[in-house]
């Protein structure tokens, strides 16, 4: 099979996968025709067969009285789901071939066969795109818990209130999933409405993978509570998603602190004037870390214990460094490939929350839905996350096809 035909199949698969921008772009062209049905590329098929073999090996080991460790358990789950989809794919492909023969051989059955055929083509396309998505290599932090950092952008107090709303949304989302989460730090606005910054840690392994597309600038359009003339304002808040690389315990922080050279890191504590010591009794426990090679500064003052503040600050520093390294590595790989494919990782203004229209639009994948309340409570945030995930894996699947 040649390269253009492979691409055509992919266009077709994405055509059927709502939502995606590819779908919008191609929906006006053609409905699937007989020529569009093509098999997957042989190199992909051989990759699938490897999984099937591995599955076979695991099953034999289990039959011989062996037992799974964590790694083989994950592999088993992945391989068996790939095998299932692959079998469905083969069935549907065989069905299509049989129908085509029927159409060619027996003119009396042609009409029925064509109707059946037209029904099966989109099913096959869907199956093969599902299969492709399974073959995408997982994100390097896919199994990590995550940290969300929220900060208001433009829009003054209204932006601070919106940042608070987003914080509540993610907390509600974690709650609806029954994930453990805690507020690592939160600085409230002077007047007590809205936040200046907040860090929410979600301790569920794998939550990074779910929430990674939340990173970016979120925009809100609504009539603020502070507005007296009924005008709609536009404000923004920024979300940063980081992987949790270790926990916030003091022991982990001490070990991590020792991994730096003394001149790489500076730890500042609050300094007061006066004699200090027994003369005064201060409760200042704020800690500020400066990491010189990267220029990252982390301030933490949430806890009464300086020791705990330091541990939290080191956990944040570690997460930020890991994320930064990942982005740099990706950038390097991209320039090495001279890759022209757009990525979703750094796009600005990812989403708009329009209250007057009760609408939320994700600008990256063009997905819109109409349930502000459900999303802001976190309960229907999944719809947006799934839409973005589908869009992203379509992009990645296209990349796989281009690379084979």
């Amino acid at each position: 099979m040649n390269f253009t035909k492979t691409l055509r199949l992919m266009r077709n698969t994405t055509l059927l996968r709502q939502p995606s921008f590819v779908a919008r772009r191609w929906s006006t062209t053609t409905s699937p025709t007989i020529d569009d049905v093509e098999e997957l590329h042989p190199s992909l098929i051989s990759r699938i067969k490897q999984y099937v073999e591995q599955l076979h090996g695991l099953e034999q080991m289990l039959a011989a009285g062996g037992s799974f460790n964590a790694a083989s358990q994950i592999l088993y789950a992945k391989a068996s789901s790939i095998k299932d989809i692959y079998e469905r794919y083969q069935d549907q492909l065989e069905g299509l071939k049989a129908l085509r023969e029927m159409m060619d051989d027996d003119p009396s059955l042609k009409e029925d066969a064509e109707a059946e055929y037209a029904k099966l083509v989109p099913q096959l396309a869907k199956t093969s795109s599902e299969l492709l998505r399974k073959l995408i290599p997982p994100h390097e932090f896919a199994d990590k818990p995550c940290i969300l950092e929220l900060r208001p952008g433009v829009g003054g107090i209204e932006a601070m209130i919106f940042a608070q709303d987003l914080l509540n949304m993610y907390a509600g989302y974690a709650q609806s999933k029954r994930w453990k989460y805690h507020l690592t730090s939160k600085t409230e606005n002077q007047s007590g409405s809205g936040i200046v910054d907040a860090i929410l840690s979600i301790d569920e392994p794998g939550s990074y993978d779910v929430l990674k597309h939340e990173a970016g600038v979120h925009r809100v359009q609504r009539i603020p509570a502070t507005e007296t003339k009924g005008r709609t304002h536009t404000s923004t808040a920024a979300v940063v998603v980081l992987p949790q690389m270790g926990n916030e315990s003091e022991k982990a922080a001490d070990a991590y602190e020792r991994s730096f050279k003394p001149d790489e890191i500076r730890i500042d504590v609050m300094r007061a004037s006066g004699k200090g010591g027994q003369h005064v009794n201060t409760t200042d426990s704020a800690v500020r870390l400066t990491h010189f090679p990267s220029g990252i500064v982390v301030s933490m003052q949430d806890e009464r214990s300086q020791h705990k503040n330091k541990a939290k600050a080191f956990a944040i520093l570690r997460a930020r460094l890991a994320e930064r390294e990942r982005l740099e590595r990706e950038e390097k790989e991209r320039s090495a490939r001279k890759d022209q494919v757009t990525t979703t990782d750094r796009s600005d203004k990812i989403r708009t929350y329009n209250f007057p229209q009760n609408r939320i639009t994700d600008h990256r994948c063009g997905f819109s839905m109409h349930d502000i309340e459900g999303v802001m409570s976190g309960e229907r945030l999944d719809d947006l996350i799934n839409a973005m995930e589908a869009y992203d894996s379509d992009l990645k699947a296209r990349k796989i096809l281009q690379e084979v």
Partner: protein
Amino acid sequence: MPRISPAMIRKVASYDPLLGLLLPVCRTAEAARQELHWIRNEGASVQRACALRARSVPLQYVLGSQPFGELEILCKRNVLIPRWETEEWASELAARWQTSRVTAPTVVDLCTGTGCVALLLKRALPRAQVTAIDCSPFAIALVTKNLHHNDIRDVTVLQRDILRDDRPAIAADLVVCNPPYIPRDAFVRDVTTSVKMYEPRLALVADKEFYTNLCDVWLRHTRSFVYEIGDISQAHFVADRISATTWSVGIRRDSNGKPRVVYGFKTDDVQLNKLYDGFGYLVR
């Protein structure tokens, strides 16, 4: 210290009346907000706590505890509240002994108060033999409570007035002490209101009695010592009274740049030379 205007208090209190109570004692709106957050977190009666704070009662007495390294030290009236400066040098000292070859040193903590330094060292060095000494019955009762609260065992607690008691001193590898060090004439001038009103004078006011006691009594029974100081003159006092041939003496500053500790060790001890290398700067 700049005066806090009634207008400022009114403004802060308009956000939350409790902040208005906390502002005069916390000095800045930001600090007041942080403190209110802590008070709410501890789950104490918030109204009562803020009312007490408005009368300058130390937060640690109101909430009943103060973090100290990884420990939570219980605090009660009549016993000095641990300071962050003490936490800083005690943590550094504990880390140094932890990495040294002496795994089971004998440690004496004089003027132990809440027992914070003794407990921190015992937690870092589980095989150390730690003795905590104080003359105040309130302190002794609180040390026992703190041992239990932090689940630490095997610390000897003695009630003894080391300035007047003539029982023999205990032989030790390390003597630590946070003695009262504020001279009588400086007490009214230099000490903040909250400390003056609510913390025990017994743990604050003394001139050089404890440094004299160190030189005359404890030096003969130990290999090294670490004493907190309030003024550099106290460090020089110790350095001048010590035999320069057998002792090395140094001063350590806190991260606020103030001289905070005078320490010393036997010059001929190779292990201790290494252990205290870089802890402060040697003056003798």
